[in-house]
């Protein structure tokens, strides 16, 4: 049994006088111990909402969550608030996207690090301080002792993200969720942060869920990748096969839209036409159909099932791209611009 098992997760935001938004729409996802899983997709596909649902951090009003999220044998959705607060930070920790705003500006770094240690590991203030220094050193912050007494605004962006990682690692969680942890950082710092996460995961058998829209990050760190579209997983594979042999047209489009070094500079990038808003409900067919270059009548004949290519590669495409096939037929009429 996997460490984290998400089954048929649905998150619906209800709105007054408007149609509800299905942010996550029947998601299944497994994460094993020690495994790094990438959760990829464009903005609005439900990546972050999924992570908030796992931690139970979605607002209670106007949000309907259904399905099951089993973590280490316990259902996170039905457990009590008290129990969930114990699990958060101790068993599941999260690293947020923006290190500039995710630290409290008026509290010293040391205070923010030690409060988690005192809460979950029952340490005294003195013990927690020693441990906090060790944690800062572990994430590669020099002069850790002094840094403990500083305020977040005295640290650079990369250092702040390291502090956030130190806070997340404080209780040696079984699972880490990193929600675009490198988006707000410049490229050299990104590489350092990814290195840090990779080393930690390898050393401690922590499961890591890496939420990102950066295929480079995925290639650099993930064992498995799940591509999300419109709140559902549309393709899942091990990292290499996914890059080499994407079957779903959305995955293919996502990979084609990223710049590569091989491509001539003058070439224009090929974006996926339309936006994530142009979708149809899964019940009527493939949500990607309105933007898909290879759409057929079958695509609109009910929800596409998950199809297995092999043991580790599944996709949800009725008319999948063939291995190493070229770009979609150009004469195909798009359903929306």
């Amino acid at each position, binding site marked *: 049994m996997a460490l984290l098992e998400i089954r048929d997760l649905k998150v619906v935001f209800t709105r007054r006088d408007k149609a509800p938004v299905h942010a996550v729409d029947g998601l299944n996802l497994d994460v094993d111990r020690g495994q790094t899983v990438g959760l990829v997709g464009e903005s609005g596909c439900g990546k972050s909402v999924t992570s908030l649902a796992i*931690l139970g*951090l979605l607002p209670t009003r106007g949000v309907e969550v259904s399905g099951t999220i089993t973590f280490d044998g316990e259902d996170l959705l039905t457990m009590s608030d008290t129990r969930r*607060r*114990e*699990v*958060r*930070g*101790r068993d599941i*920790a*999260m690293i*947020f996207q*923006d290190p500039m*705003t*995710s*630290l*409290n*500006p*008026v*509290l010293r770094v040391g*205070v923010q690090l030690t*409060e*988690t240690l005192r*809460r*979950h590991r029952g340490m005294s203030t003195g013990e927690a301080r020693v441990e906090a220094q060790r944690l800062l050193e572990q994430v590669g912050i*020099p*002069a850790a002792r*002094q840094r403990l*007494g*500083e*305020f977040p*605004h*005295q*640290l*650079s*962006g*990369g*250092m702040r993200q390291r502090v*956030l990682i130190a*806070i*997340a690692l*404080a209780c040696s969680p079984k699972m880490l969720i990193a929600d675009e942890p490198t988006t707000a950082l410049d490229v050299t710092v990104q590489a350092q942060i990814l290195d840090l996460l990779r080393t930690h995961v390898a050393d401690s058998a922590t499961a890591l869920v890496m939420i990102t829209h950066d295929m480079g990050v995925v290639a650099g760190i993930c064992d498995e990748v799940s591509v999300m579209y419109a709140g559902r997983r549309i393709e899942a594979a091990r990292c290499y096969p996914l890059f080499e042999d994407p079957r779903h047209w959305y995955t293919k489009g996502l990979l084609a839209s990223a710049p590569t070094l091989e491509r001539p500079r003058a070439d224009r990038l090929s974006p996926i036409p339309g936006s994530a808003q142009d979708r149809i409900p899964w019940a009527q067919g493939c949500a990607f159909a309105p933007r898909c270059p290879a759409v057929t009548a079958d695509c609109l004949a009910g929800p596409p099932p998950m199809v297995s290519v092999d043991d580790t590669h599944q996709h949800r495409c009725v008319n999948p791209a063939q291995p190493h096939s070229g770009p979609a037929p150009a004469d195909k009429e798009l359903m929306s611009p």
Partner: protein
Amino acid sequence: MTTAFTDIATAQGLELTHGEVEQIGGGLWRQALRRLAHSPAAIVGTILITCFVLVAIFAPWIAPYAPGDNTWLSEVRPGEYPPPSAEHWLGIDPQGRDVFSRLIYGTRQSLLIGVVSVVLGGLVGVGLGLLAGAFSGWVDTTVMRFVDILLSVPSLLLAIAIAAVLGPSLTSVMIAIAVTSVPIFARLLRGQMLGQRASDYVLAAKASGLRRRTIVFGHVLPNSMTPVLVQGTLYLSIAIIDAAGLAFLGLSSPDPSTPEWGRMLTDAQDALATAPLLAIAPGIAIVLAALGFTLLGEQMREALDPKYHR
């Protein structure tokens, strides 16, 4: 600026020592203090406030006579009051007392009323705001409706009503002014807390499983208090003016040995045509004290505003 500098220094393997970083950065309050020290308005405000505080403390040594001493009653004729002289710098009031001495002692009452009522009102207001800001739902609604009711009555009218019910005394004036300031502090703090609650660091704190009270008291409250402190400073001037107003209406302590600027205005009312100085002197004192707190408060608001940072 600081961040970029630290970045470059770190990239070049130049590790800044704690002291150096401290010099460049410094805490929010330290930076604010530095900015205040360069602001002429803040300096003027601070000097004014310091003067009034010193005068209040050393009143018995500064004032030439006791405030209730009416030895010079014989020199007063109806409609004709002795003008300023070497012995009586600001003249003698209709009850035959030295105006300068009463003005000096009056500083004590005015500052006392201002500080006590703002602290009292601030405490209750912060308590209510904390309740409303920490719990949403019915607690928030109940507290805020109560605050709205308080706010719907004009504040001076409310203060007059309260002081009238409690009877004329120093305490009732302080309570009256405190009550009228409660809604201001409560609304301000609640608004700040609602804003902070939606911030990333609160989400991060929740994600690390911290208890609700740790988040409220350790994270949200410290980030929400700055505007409340600034408002408190600004409200001191309003409290001093309101106190004078209530005293003018005869709602402060009737004891002649504890003079109050507002009451001095009342006493000077009949002599306004012949001896305007009797009213002008306490009037100027009220204006200067209020001005001091307003200047400092406004400058503090700017110095602590993150928009002015870097």
